[in-house]
């Protein structure tokens, strides 16, 4: 079918960033944490490096996809009017929503494969589960990008974007189970983590790579991520229609 062209993704970035995060945090902090007296119990017997790096596919996907759904998507609506041009053809606003979803998926797939390839170099994370972690990353990315696209399409300026990153994305990154199990959070904060898409993505990717995920839990995570995507897409259909066909 006719959908948007896929931009040259930055392949160098796809490898360079995860390596940086891995070396910077996984190895550095890992050396400290693994010396702690009860770290093995908290981390289910895995090293900190394995624990942290196995979440990376999900967190990187969140960042890539979220950013893509903010400024570049605003460009299509507000600056270049590319989506207006598209919808003057047989393409309708809902097709733009679908096309964008496919585009975000393609972009996060490239990123997730990049991280998976990097992780395959390390003994602790080398497993067939990496293959399952790639779609987990893509789902995570979409669970952010698709709802954000609905938001972007309802805005005329990017003023709200930095706060979104600062107050939604970054806190999830810090508290969503990427750096430590959410059981370590204060009790009142733990349920908050349960509803964030990132936690589900992290659990899914980590569970897949370290092969620790019971099947039922896995399905639950997939279900929650899909719910974010489907609801986000439905929101997009409404907001895109409103924006492109006023």
């Amino acid at each position, binding site marked *: 079918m*006719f959908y948007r062209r896929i931009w040259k993704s930055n392949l160098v970035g796809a490898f360079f960033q995860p390596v940086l995060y891995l070396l910077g945090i996984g190895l550095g902090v890992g050396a400290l944490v693994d010396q702690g007296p009860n770290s093995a119990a908290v981390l289910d017997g895995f090293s900190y490096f394995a624990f942290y790096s196995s979440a990376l596919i999900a967190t990187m996907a969140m960042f890539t996809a979220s950013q893509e759904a903010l400024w570049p998507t605003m460009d299509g609506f507000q600056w270049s009017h590319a989506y207006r*041009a598209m919808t*003057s*053809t*047989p393409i309708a606003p809902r097709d733009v929503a679908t096309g964008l979803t496919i585009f975000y998926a393609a972009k996060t797939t490239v990123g997730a494969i990049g991280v998976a390839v990097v992780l395959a170099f390390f003994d602790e994370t080398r497993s067939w589960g990496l293959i399952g972690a790639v779609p987990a990353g893509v789902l995570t990315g979409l669970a952010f990008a698709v709802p954000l696209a609905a938001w972007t399409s309802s805005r005329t300026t990017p003023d709200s974007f930095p706060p979104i990153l600062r107050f939604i994305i970054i806190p999830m990154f810090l508290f969503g189970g990427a750096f430590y199990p959410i059981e370590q959070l204060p009790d009142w904060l733990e349920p908050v983590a349960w509803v964030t898409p990132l936690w589900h993505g992290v659990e899914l990717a980590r569970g897949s790579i370290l092969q620790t995920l019971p099947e039922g839990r896995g399905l639950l995570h997939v279900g929650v991520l899909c719910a974010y995507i489907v609801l986000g897409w439905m929101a997009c259909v409404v907001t895109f229609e409103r924006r492109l*066909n006023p």
Partner: protein
Amino acid sequence: MNEPLITARSLVKKFGDLVAVDEIDFDVEQGEAFGFLGPNGAGKTSSMRMIGCVSPTTSGRLEIFGLSPTADGRAIRARIGVVPQMDQLDNELTVLENLVIYARYFDIPRDVARARAAELLEFVQLTERKDDTVDPLSGGQKRRVSIARSLISEPELMLLDEPTTGLDPQARHVLWDRLYQLKERGATLVLTTHYMDEAEQLCDRLVVMNGGKIVAEGSPRNLITTYATREVLEMRFGRGHNEEHVSEVSQVGERVEILPDRLLVYAHDGEGALATLRERNIIPESALVRRSSLEDVFLRLTGRTLVD
């Protein structure tokens, strides 16, 4: 057999409380060039966007190719070519890529698209720029890319929203010539414009819009004879002094119009009117007699201070 290509009856477009298009009626026939003429905010673009099936109608009846925009938007859009008021080109792509990718949205196979794109770029005289990115092109060149792009699907109906605004006279004439050729090939053109000469040159029939309503309809010639006299006498008495002479001046013409810098006297015989005024010792700083044009119709219908 010869159904109109577009039919609008009591067509209304509201944005919240703002009535952008207020119960307009018009028909556009197959093969004609139909114009919307009107000042800023008259509702031209709003009307065009409803015809282009990218803006739902608030009420009234609208049919394009006998189809309804609500039910058959896709099918209608597949048969029309749109040149929007603001160019919506992808500035990072080349001229050729802009055309070929747009063709994909119509499901036109890539090789067909390439062949058509080459032909169209020849048609708008941009063949030698086909591999340049769009960004550095001049306004007129971008406009021609937009027109070429809108033609890639071989539309039966073209919607052109102010196709020549912002272009220099040369570029406008090139565009007029291209549009005229399209019309000769049988395309139906619907265009909006602020330029009277453009409407006179291109339109078989036009409507004048003001404040969301159609205030006049007809061929350019026809509108001129209905709403203006054969000649117009333009006089300048110097800034601030024009009003002083309105009452004397209005005795020699059928109508007087006061513009900020000059008085327009509508008269069958402009020179005669001027001579009469001179006899009465009313001597303007400068005076000019010309044939009346669509501009006079426009000024009359869309409002300036009028003295009958």
